[in-house]
């Protein structure tokens, strides 16, 4: 016994913000007509049910970590910092081809961050919002200086190629942000949770192909997600009318519209911009929110200083939401 009664601990930043964003999609575009050639579906049927016009698919040699590193490097460049300014990497993903090794250590090395703290986070389609909440708190606690947060998915390994319910929806790609210290709080408290009693409505059948109870998932997403987003606003001290841009996980355009409708019924503005990146990107799970954010910044639909409401939801079931001020 040394007689010590208290340990030295870290002290972190008072507040955090997103410093920059980046995204990556494989070049290969898959249209609805392409899918209609290999399964019983049609362009009209897909547009009506899920709102997708086209999506991107990984080639046989494209790796999930390549997508993640490419999006990550762009986010670091957009932040105006060097890789060496970052000490922690979180990759949110649910589609790694193997359990070991994880994605994050390799991604840290690929983007040029030596010796980073690195871990993967699996909260399925809620993963990015979980990871932002975690990264922000790591910086505030002093465990990390700056965190590269990536959402990356490669569904090619996990969707039965002719499954007309899922092959039309899921797509590949990555989105990334850098979280760092800030004088003013630009990442609000996370509103997160889970509903494990509904674990069986989205799962990997025979540990191989993704399966969803479509109606159950749709019912949950269109009724239970908006209250999670409203709670994030409440935790941040804002009202629905303060939201400039709503970026829900891009699960299905009809779910996106249902969430927006519910928020407008609670006072969100008619001119609130609503992310619809799914139309040309498909559902990329944990990548969908950062990819939509990056695409919308590039397109001039999101401006510096905009109040963004992010809400992720998916298998688990898991959910997380937070308010962010756009970089």
């Amino acid at each position, binding site marked *: 016994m040394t007689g010590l009664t208290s340990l030295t601990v870290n002290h972190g930043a008072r507040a955090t913000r997103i410093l920059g964003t980046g995204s990556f999609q494989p070049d290969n575009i898959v249209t609805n007509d392409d899918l209609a050639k290999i399964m019983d579906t049609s362009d009209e049927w897909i547009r009506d049910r899920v709102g997708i016009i086209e999506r991107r698919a990984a080639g046989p040699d494209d790796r999930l970590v390549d997508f993640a590193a490419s999006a990550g490097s762009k986010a670091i460049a957009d932040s105006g910092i060097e890789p060496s300014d970052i000490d922690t990497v979180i990759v949110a993903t649910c589609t790694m081809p193997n359990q070991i090794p994880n994605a994050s250590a390799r991604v840290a090395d690929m983007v040029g961050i030596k010796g980073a703290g690195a871990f993967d986070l699996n909260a399925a389609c809620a993963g990015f919002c979980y990871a932002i909440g975690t990264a922000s708190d790591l910086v505030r606690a002093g465990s990390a200086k700056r965190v590269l947060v990536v959402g990356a998915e490669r569904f090619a390994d996990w969707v039965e190629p002719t499954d007309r319910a899922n092959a039309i929806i899921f797509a590949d790609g990555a989105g990334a942000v850098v979280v760092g210290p800030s004088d003013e709080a630009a990442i609000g408290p996370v509103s997160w949770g889970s509903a494990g009693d509904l674990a069986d409505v989205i799962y990997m059948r025979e540990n191989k192909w993704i399966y969803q109870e*479509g*109606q*159950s998932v*749709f019912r949950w997403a269109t009724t239970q997600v908006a209250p999670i987003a409203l709670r994030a606003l409440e935790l941040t001290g804002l009202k629905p009318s303060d939201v400039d841009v709503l970026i829900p996980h891009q699960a*299905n355009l*009809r779910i996106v519209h249902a969430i927006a409708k519910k928020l407008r019924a609670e006072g969100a503005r008619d001119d609130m911009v609503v992310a619809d990146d799914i139309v040309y990107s498909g559902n990329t799970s944990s990548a969908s929110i950062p990819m939509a954010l990056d695409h919308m910044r590039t397109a001039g639909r999101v401006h510096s200083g905009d109040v963004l409401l992010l809400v992720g939801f998916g298998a688990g079931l898991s959910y997380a939401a937070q308010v962010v001020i756009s970089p």
Partner: protein
Amino acid sequence: MANEQIEKELAEIVEEIAGVAAADVTIDKSFVDDLDIDSLSMVEIAVQAEDKFGVKIPDDELANLKTVGDAVNYIASKQ
């Protein structure tokens, strides 16, 4: 609530969700075959009907409600 009243209010919900004229939503019509309503719109109709009529319509019950008349009878039996 009388069946006629349930039918009238259900028809209004169907019109709002699926854009089918309420007058066309009559008890002999099949949601899928006659009114061209898809499985996701059926969920939205069920959720609104639950609020409106104070009943529960779980997804496995929803699958059995083929016609407007099936839905009216189900709601009436649960009220």
